[in-house]
């Protein structure tokens, strides 16, 4: 017999009206069963059931049942608030584990409600949240259930959202894959936890959990600790690892150090370094030798060593320690290394070597620009110099300048300042010899005679750029220079340099020096001083901000106000809500320049958080402020707030990019440029494309620069629009009738497009998704070039090399191969430009001939070098051949492989291979990272599976002699490459630092 189905709830509803309580119970019980089916019928009787729920005389259980029925009906009616309140009344009858739409909906609602109550309570600083205990009970039941069912991620998400750290901890510790859950949790806390304070709490909890684990993941712990700014924790972990007898632990420690360095948090790193305990038997000299001020007459050799007090001091100490306890000796040796890493010197050195050896910059482009730029147009002239500096940033290749000394000497006054400062960009990170390089231009002590103040100021600025964020050795010198001069141009340079070198150190003495420069009330020096104070105090949210604000109100000079406004903004870097008072104060100011600073404060305080409140505020200012400057900056600031989610930016600013106001359009272009920098995001390019042919010249300028920032390191194979863009740039530069502004934009854009010898990208986030302070600050100051061109150089701070650099225990670069699972053409360097056949065919041949000859010569040289390197490698191998012939053969085969692949791109006819073997150190562009695979049968195993950056390699065959690739190649190649330009060899300096590329000889252009 077929089961009979009831067709209406009428009978049950009628039964509710019966007088006998047992009948009502029966009715309720059955209604609850059928409510999913008959809720429309029941909904008319809801008041009746409600009255049952409120009936005090009714049995408790029955009242809950009534509440449950009502709750279900309300849920179906879409009235979730009422539904929830009745579900709470149903208490234990509301079963969180039930798998029904009703329960799912209400749970979501309950959790939302609970989370919003909790966070509201915390935001209003109430001690105890005024939360319905029944609601809490439901959420807790839900959390327990998630944990029981093994849905840890879900449980963690809810726990974080509801600010239940106790539950979060429980979820993590009870999960089956604690490491996985922890890293998931870290990601979540960065991506979804908006309030900084709370994020810190979460991270602190994570650190605690990490530390309780039997095999802690030190890499992640240290990242968390860095965010929490707890150098003691990092130091103790590092020390523990260093003291361990296991070599792998030491490797891990090095890896941690490199990862920390990547975040460029100078003050923190120095703190960690200073907290590492000194080996027992060591004398005090190695702790921190104070940088001495070398005499200008000293020979180069000693200057170089003085400039690097760390390596110098510790090498002495290792020498002395070696006779004592062997364990201590090992520790001391490792300590030396790790200090080198933490001070950033090791990574800077390696980066420098990489950028130098892999430099692929295209001089022909510069030459074309130079020829097409009109002689008397100083804007374009200096733009070309900027472009050259950016193109060669960090490569130490200044061939172009040397070849065009005459042309260069046309730069006068401030142009001269920036031309000199450009050297700093080119030699960025050349810590050892920075001083000697710049010596010809530096102020000569008290005599004051020699050079013009412009080149002297520029040189001080250049020193700052060279030592940006690693200014230990140079600080003192810059301070002295600042104090000993009263020429405002030199003060300007010194202030900028000092700010860069002492970035974020919050050094009181330096601050006072700069302050005295500010109080001279000279517009030029004051502007730099304002910015410099901000750089010094980056992210400290110190009291100094109010002092600066007061002075900004006092002074008459717009330049000073602007400098101070930016400086104040820098001080609240990354402080999120803590900065709100200051932001409020600035954005409400009468003075548009201070409001403009307020926009920067918003941008920097909420950098990369995609915080909705900040975005809303910025959008509001972007459309409502009366000052164009403020509006432009407000839009631009969106780029900073959104850089962690670049996909969002084009969508958010797309309307603004069509604004009638050119300033807003300009801001939109740069916002996209900043947040999508180096991503090559298709939407970003589509948004910028129309702007590059805007009717207003400065919008075109902004769009061109932004486009270059987005497309940096892309080649035509990955997006055809890159090629179009390059041709567009060329056209604009060659066009005689183009506006100066957009021409300048085009020149700068060509510089950025090929920045750092085509081996760097603009990256604002480290690989662990932390923000890179220096890079963000660099871009923020760079965006100021609207008012002050020399600030363009700050963009070099945001460049980070796209390299995989594998290091062995000795922090040398061993020969190591790995695979990139993608067509080589996708990520190869853009092809060097060839003879431009478009216009002025008469004029060009000579120029082309000379360069192509040069290029040929260079290629030849490279081939020679390669051969040399090969020979060296072969020699090294043959020496080991006696020991182990079998292995030798295999490695020889490998060599052959790599050779073949190297030569493949040249043979066009062959079908392209679907993978490519890269040799350490290799260029790995960001888009390529996901294709990187490590070979399993390789001699080295990476400590951390990172596709780029510095990676420590574990040597699986430690007995065999190692073949070093980078240092080896350099020692044989340095001399011809370095010498080719200047024609003379600095043998003395070659002795000083063997594995360093040669500094180009100082040159001087006649002014």
């Amino acid at each position, binding site marked *: *017999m*077929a*089961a*009979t*189905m*009831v*067709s*209406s*709830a*009428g*009978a*049950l*509803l*009628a*039964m509710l*009206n*019966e*007088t*006998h309580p*047992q*009948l009502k119970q*029966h009715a309720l019980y*059955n209604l609850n*069963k*059928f409510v999913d089916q008959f809720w429309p019928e029941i909904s008319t009787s809801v008041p009746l059931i409600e009255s049952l729920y409120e009936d005090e005389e009714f049995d408790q259980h029955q009242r809950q049942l009534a509440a449950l029925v009502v709750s279900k009906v309300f849920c179906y009616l879409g009235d979730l608030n009422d539904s929830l309140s009745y579900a709470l009344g149903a208490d234990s009858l509301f079963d969180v584990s039930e798998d029904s739409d009703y329960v799912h909906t209400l749970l979501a609602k309950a959790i939302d409600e609970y989370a919003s109550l909790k966070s509201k309570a915390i935001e209003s600083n109430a001690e105890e949240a005024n939360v319905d205990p029944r609601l809490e009970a439901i959420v807790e039941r839900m959390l327990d259930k998630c944990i029981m069912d093994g849905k840890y991620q879900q449980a963690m998400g809810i726990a974080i959202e509801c600010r239940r750290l106790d539950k979060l901890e429980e979820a993590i510790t009870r999960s089956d894959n604690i490491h996985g859950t922890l890293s998931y949790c870290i990601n979540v806390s960065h991506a979804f936890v908006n309030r900084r304070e709370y994020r810190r709490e979460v991270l602190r909890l994570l650190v605690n959990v990490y530390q309780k684990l039997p095999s802690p993941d030190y890499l992640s712990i240290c990242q968390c600790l860095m965010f929490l700014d707890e150098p003691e924790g990092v130091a103790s972990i590092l020390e523990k690892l260093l003291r361990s007898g296991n070599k792998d632990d030491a490797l891990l420690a090095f890896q941690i150090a490199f990862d920390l360095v990547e975040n460029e948090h100078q003050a923190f790193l120095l703190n960690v370094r200073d907290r590492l305990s000194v080996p027992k038997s060591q004398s005090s000299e190695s702790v921190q030798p104070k940088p001495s001020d070398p005499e200008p007459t000293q020979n180069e050799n000693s200057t170089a060593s003085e400039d690097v007090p760390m390596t110098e001091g510790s090498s002495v100490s290792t020498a002395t320690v070696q006779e004592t306890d062997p364990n201590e000796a090992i520790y001391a040796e490792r300590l030396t290394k790790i200090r080198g890493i933490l001070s950033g010197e090791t990574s800077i050195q390696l980066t420098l070597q990489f950028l130098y050896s892999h430099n692929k910059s295209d001089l022909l482009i510069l030459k074309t620009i130079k020829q097409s730029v009109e002689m008397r147009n100083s804007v374009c002239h200096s733009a070309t110099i900027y472009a050259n500096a950016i193109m060669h940033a960090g490569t130490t290749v200044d061939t172009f300048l040397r070849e065009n000394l005459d042309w260069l000497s046309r730069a006068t006054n401030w142009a001269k300042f920036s031309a000199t400062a450009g050297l700093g960009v080119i030699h960025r990170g050349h810590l050892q010899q920075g001083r000697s390089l710049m010596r010809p231009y530096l102020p000569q002590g008290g005599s004051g005679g020699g050079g013009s103040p412009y080149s002297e100021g520029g040189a001080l600025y250049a020193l700052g750029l060279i030592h940006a964020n690693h200014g230990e050795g140079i600080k003192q010198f810059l301070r002295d220079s600042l104090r000993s001069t009263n020429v405002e141009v030199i003060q300007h340079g010194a202030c900028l340099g000092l700010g860069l070198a002492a970035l974020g150190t919050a050094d009181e003495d330096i601050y006072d020096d700069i302050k005295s420069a500010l109080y001279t009330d000279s517009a030029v020096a004051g502007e730099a001083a304002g910015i410099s104070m901000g750089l010094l105090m980056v992210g400290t949210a110190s009291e100094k901000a109010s002092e600066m604000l007061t002075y900004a109100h006092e002074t008459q000079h717009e330049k000073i106000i602007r400098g101070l406004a930016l400086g104040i903004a820098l001080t609240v870097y990354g402080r999120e809500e803590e900065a709100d008072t200051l932001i409020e104060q600035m954005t409400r100011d009468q003075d548009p320049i201070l409001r403009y600073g307020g926009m920067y404060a918003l941008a920097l305080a909420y950098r990369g958080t995609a915080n909705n409140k900040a975005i809303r505020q910025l959008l509001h200012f972007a459309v409502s402020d009366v000052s164009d400057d403020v509006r432009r900056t407000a839009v631009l600031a969106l780029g900073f707030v959104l850089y962690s989610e670049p996909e969002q930016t084009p969508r958010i600013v797309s309307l603004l990019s069509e604004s009638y106001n050119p300033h807003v359009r300009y801001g939109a272009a740069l916002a996209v440029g900043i947040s999508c920098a180096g991503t090559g995001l298709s939407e970003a390019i589509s948004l910028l494309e129309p702007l590059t042919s805007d009717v207003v010249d400065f919008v075109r300028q902004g769009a061109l620069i932004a486009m270059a920032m987005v497309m940096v390191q892309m080649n035509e194979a990955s997006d055809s629009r890159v090629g179009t863009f390059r041709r567009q740039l060329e056209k604009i530069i060659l066009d005689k009738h183009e506006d100066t502004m957009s021409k300048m934009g085009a020149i700068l854009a060509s510089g950025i497009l090929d920045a750092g010898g085509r081996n760097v990208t603009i990256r604002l986030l480290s690989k662990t998704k932390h923000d890179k302070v220096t890079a963000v600050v660099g871009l923020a100051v760079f965006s100021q070039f609207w008012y002050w061109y020399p600030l363009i150089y700050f963009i070099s701070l945001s460049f980070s090399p796209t390299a995989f650099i594998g290091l062995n225990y000795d922090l040398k670069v061993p020969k190591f191969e790995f695979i990139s699972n993608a067509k080589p053409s996708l990520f190869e360097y853009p092809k060097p430009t060839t003879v431009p056949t478009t216009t002025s065919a008469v004029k060009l041949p000579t120029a082309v001939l000379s360069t192509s000859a040069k290029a040929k010569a260079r290629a030849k040289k490279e081939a020679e070098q390669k051969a040399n390197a090969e020979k060296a490698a072969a020699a090294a191998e043959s020496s080991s051949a006696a020991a182990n012939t079998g292995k030798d053969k295999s490695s020889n085969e490998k060599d052959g492989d790599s050779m073949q692949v190297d030569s493949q791109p040249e043979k066009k006819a062959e079908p392209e291979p679907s993978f490519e073997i890269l040799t350490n150190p290799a260029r790995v562009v960001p888009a390529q990272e996901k294709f990187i695979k490590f070979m399993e049968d390789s001699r080295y195993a990476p400590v951390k599976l990172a596709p780029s950056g510095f990676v420590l390699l574990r040597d699986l065959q430690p007995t065999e002699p190692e073949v070093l690739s980078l240092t080896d190649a350099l020692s044989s190649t340095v001399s011809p490459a370095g010498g080719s330009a200047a024609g003379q060899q600095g043998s003395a300096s070659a002795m000083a630092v063997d594995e360093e590329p040669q500094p180009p000889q100082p040159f001087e252009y006649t002014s």
Partner: protein
Amino acid sequence: MDPKLAEVSQLFERFKAACAREDVDTCCNVLSKLKVLLTGFSSLPPLFEDTPNAIHELTLARDIYEHAVLLSVKIGDQDAFERDFFQLKPYYTDASSRLPPSSQEYMILGLNLLRLLVQNRIAEFHTELELLSSTALENPCIKHAVELEQSFMEGAYNRVLSAKQTVPCKTYDYFMDLLAKTVRDEIAGCSEKAYGYLSVSDARQMLLFSSDNELLQYIKEEQPEWEIKTGQVIFQKAKESASCKEIPSLQLINQTLSYARELERIV
């Protein structure tokens, strides 16, 4: 036989006996007990579980509820009628495939229709009607109710009142009396709207009373706001004087035209 079932049947016999004695209080008490006992059977709606005694239990329960409905008519309790009828209804609709049809079914359905008519719940009346099959519509009990409704709707109130003589069943009397009152209320409502006043004799005719006294009695009880003055019944119309608001059309037109003019000027 299942002891529970036996208990119920026993109690039911007592109930029937009490009914026969017209002992209303006992009836109500026993009925309440019976209903509670019925909740113990899972074969009854809304569960309809298949138990061995299902058919027997269902039939018994249906009988009980049918008696309950009739009892409620007897004591003139409309609410109880409604409750009991709704609880009875699943036995007619959902369980119809399993049970032999009840002899009282149409009578009770007709009663229900009548009740709806009395309570002037015309929409529900039609809903119920739609649920009936065509054979059911032929049944005199149902037909009677349907005809009544038609007369009621047409305004042939005299026919409604005269239908009292043709009731198919004695139990209908209770509702027919009520219906007469409903009809009168309806007429009173209409006259109130239609006339300012009426002479007493006209009103008596209109309201289908046989004597003036009955009319006066009615007015006193049901329509206290009517006044009787000098042989006239005066209806109070004051309350529905809420006039509909006038639309300030001229002003609106002027405003719109001026906007249009201004717009043209701007462009």
